[in-house]
């Protein structure tokens, strides 16, 4: 079918529930073509080389007793030298077992950090408050905690890369916040990719469940260090379930290598009074899509899906949203802002669907972009499907350039042209950044622009 689907033996090949999910997904995967509407603006040709490599299962290696060398990524010493250590890194000499992960990024604010390295979870768990349960997805399956939620509401006919992700189902976390539990600081999934891992295909699946009245902040951070031209494909799916009155602030920051591919799907289901506040900053990757599907299931469910993208070179970064208002008195708001330079291309596809009985519903959407060069491009496709008659719905899109008068004004005060542009770009993002509730996260991202 496609070179992306390969034979690999993964953990749970003998567990029918897991293997069943994979099998169905393998059969369902399809590669979008130039004629596929949902991928009309975001071309996938950089994926159409059949040379992606899937690493062998870390879980099986452990189970099969393959000796796992401790390595310094885990704070331990690596006992190997002159060859690759199990974390995938190459150590030149025994004395210098500083592997690159020593430089692994931490966040500039306090968080419960969970690290992934080249797509593999590093099993060190922070001490979280009671009512917060974190385990690998495979563990959750093994002990029955997964509750048959995984993949339940994802339509592979619509989301082929979620099918791809499920075909390789193994890595990822199950995060379970019990009823009324609250976190005092954000949970952070930090995904490090290191150079020298050419063409690695990584699939991570996170299942995030907030029971009624639970409250949490979740940060996802994708970053890269090493050989700048390294090419890899991170394919991420987050399934998020918010119970009645549950609140999740979800902030994603994608800063992958400039030749990488990063596709992500967030599939969110919200019950009554539940609030999802999503934000995504996309900055890295050659091809990136951050797709968010929200289903407002019951009265007073609310969702914000905000995003910013900043790009140069030849990248294509895509923000796609699909908000379904399925009950009366539900609320959604989207603000997406982009700054595009070079020969890069920004894509925004935003859909608001309002079901027939979803009266007194409010759905808002605004996309704005700044083009920094003549060759930069932005494609916008808003879609409203409204079947109820008593609703407040709006959408808008605007595209502009840096204001030459403002630039001149700033420079006439002594500020260099480059700095003045940077200040204007920062200023451009202020309103969308202000929608991130946590000031520290806001400051972090503002500094990353």
């Amino acid at each position, binding site marked *: 079918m496609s070179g992306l689907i390969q034979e690999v033996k993964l953990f749970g090949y003998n567990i029918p529930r897991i293997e069943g999910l994979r099998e169905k997904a393998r059969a369902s995967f399809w590669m979008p073509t130039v004629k596929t509407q949902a991928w009309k603006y975001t071309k996938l040709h950089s994926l159409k080389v059949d040379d992606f490599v899937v690493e062998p299962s870390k879980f099986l290696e452990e189970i099969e007793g393959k000796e796992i060398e401790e390595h310094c990524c885990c704070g331990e010493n690596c006992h190997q030298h002159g060859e690759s250590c199990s974390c995938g890194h190459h150590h030149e000499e025994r004395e210098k077992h500083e592997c690159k992960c020593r430089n692994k990024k931490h966040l500039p604010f306090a968080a419960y950090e969970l690290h992934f390295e080249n797509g593999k979870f590093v099993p060190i768990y922070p001490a979280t408050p009671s009512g917060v349960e974190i385990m690998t997805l495979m563990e959750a399956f093994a002990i029955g905690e997964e509750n048959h939620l995984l993949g339940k509401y994802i339509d592979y006919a619509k989301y082929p890369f979620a099918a791809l992700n499920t075909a390789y189902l193994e890595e990822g976390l199950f995060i379970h916040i019990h009823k009324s539990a609250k976190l005092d600081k954000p949970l952070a999934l930090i995904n490090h990719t290191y150079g020298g891992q050419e063409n690695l295909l990584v699939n991570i699946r996170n299942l995030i469940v907030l029971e009624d009245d639970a409250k949490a902040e979740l940060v996802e951070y994708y970053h890269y260090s090493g050989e700048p031209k390294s090419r890899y494909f991170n394919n991420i799916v987050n399934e998020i379930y918010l119970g009645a009155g549950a609140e999740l602030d979800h902030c994603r920051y994608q800063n992958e290598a400039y030749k990488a591919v990063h596709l992500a799907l967030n599939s969110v289901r919200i019950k009554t009074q539940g609030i999802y506040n999503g934000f995504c900053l996309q900055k890295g990757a050659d091809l990136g899509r951050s797709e968010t599907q929200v289903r407002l299931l019951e009265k007073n469910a609310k969702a914000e899906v905000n995003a910013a993208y900043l790009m140069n070179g030849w990248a294509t970064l895509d923000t796609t949203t699909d908000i379904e208002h399925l009950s009366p008195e539900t609320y959604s708001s989207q603000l997406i802002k982009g700054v595009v330079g070079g020969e890069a291309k920004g894509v925004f596809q935003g859909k608001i669907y309002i079901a027939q009985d979803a009266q007194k519903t409010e759905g808002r959407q605004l996309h704005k972009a700044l083009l920094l060069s003549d060759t930069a491009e932005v494609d916008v496709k808003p879609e409203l499907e409204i079947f109820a008659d008593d609703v407040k719905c709006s959408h808008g899109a605007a595209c502009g350039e840096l204001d030459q008068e403002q630039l001149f*004004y*700033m420079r006439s005060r002594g500020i260099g042209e480059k700095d003045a542009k940077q200040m204007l770009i920062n200023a451009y993002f202020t309103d969308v950044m202000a929608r991130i509730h946590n000031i520290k996260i806001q400051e972090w991202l503002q500094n990353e622009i």
Partner: protein
Amino acid sequence: MNTPLLEIEDLYAGVAGKEIIKGFNLTINEGEVHAIMGPNGAGKSTLSYLLCGKPGYEITSGVIKFRGKNLMTMSVEERACEGIFLIMQYPVEIPGVPVTSFLKYAVNAQRKYHNQPELDTMEFIKMLREEGRKLGIDAEMLKRPVNVGFSGGEKKRLETLQMAVLKPQLAILDEADSGLDIDALKIVAEGVNNLRDNKRSLLVITHYQRLLNYIVPDFVHVFADGRIVKSGDKNLALELEEKGYAEFVKDK
């Protein structure tokens, strides 16, 4: 004799392919105050933009020197750092950039140009508040984005504040008095006068003699059709107030 601060010789220039400045000459020495008066559309703002190096404004021939150095090859920011400051006729709004951080950035950019260390943030804020107070700009306004939602008079006061903080060698005032009420006019004039010493110079563009009662010029020039057509002392301004520009524009 010292090198003049500004020398403009036989300048021809324009914008968008239209010639606006036609044989303009002016020399300003250190410490001097020159006023330029002239009818609408004469090219006064164009001249001030040319001095600041605004993109799009092109010089066809002539020379502009600042402290003996060729000004025409310098970028906008270099000219600012060299000490040229323009109070704009229409100050620009910059949403999302608060006055305080904007000015701090500008001051430090200029200090860096002169190899001086950055200012301490607390000290800078203290100084800014103090200068702001003199011009009737309170701490709340300093937090707002540059010029956004400022009234016409407030904008001019903010321009004056920037001048007070950046301490230019040559300040060009392009209708700094327009939109100001009588009290604000005095405040702005006072702000400008505070900066005056025997080294700094002013080029004051105005339509009204009134401003020149507060900022007393050494020379007054009549600017019509792209060049200076008459020069005199401060009494020339009074004369113009009475007779208008008819004498200068009719021979066109």
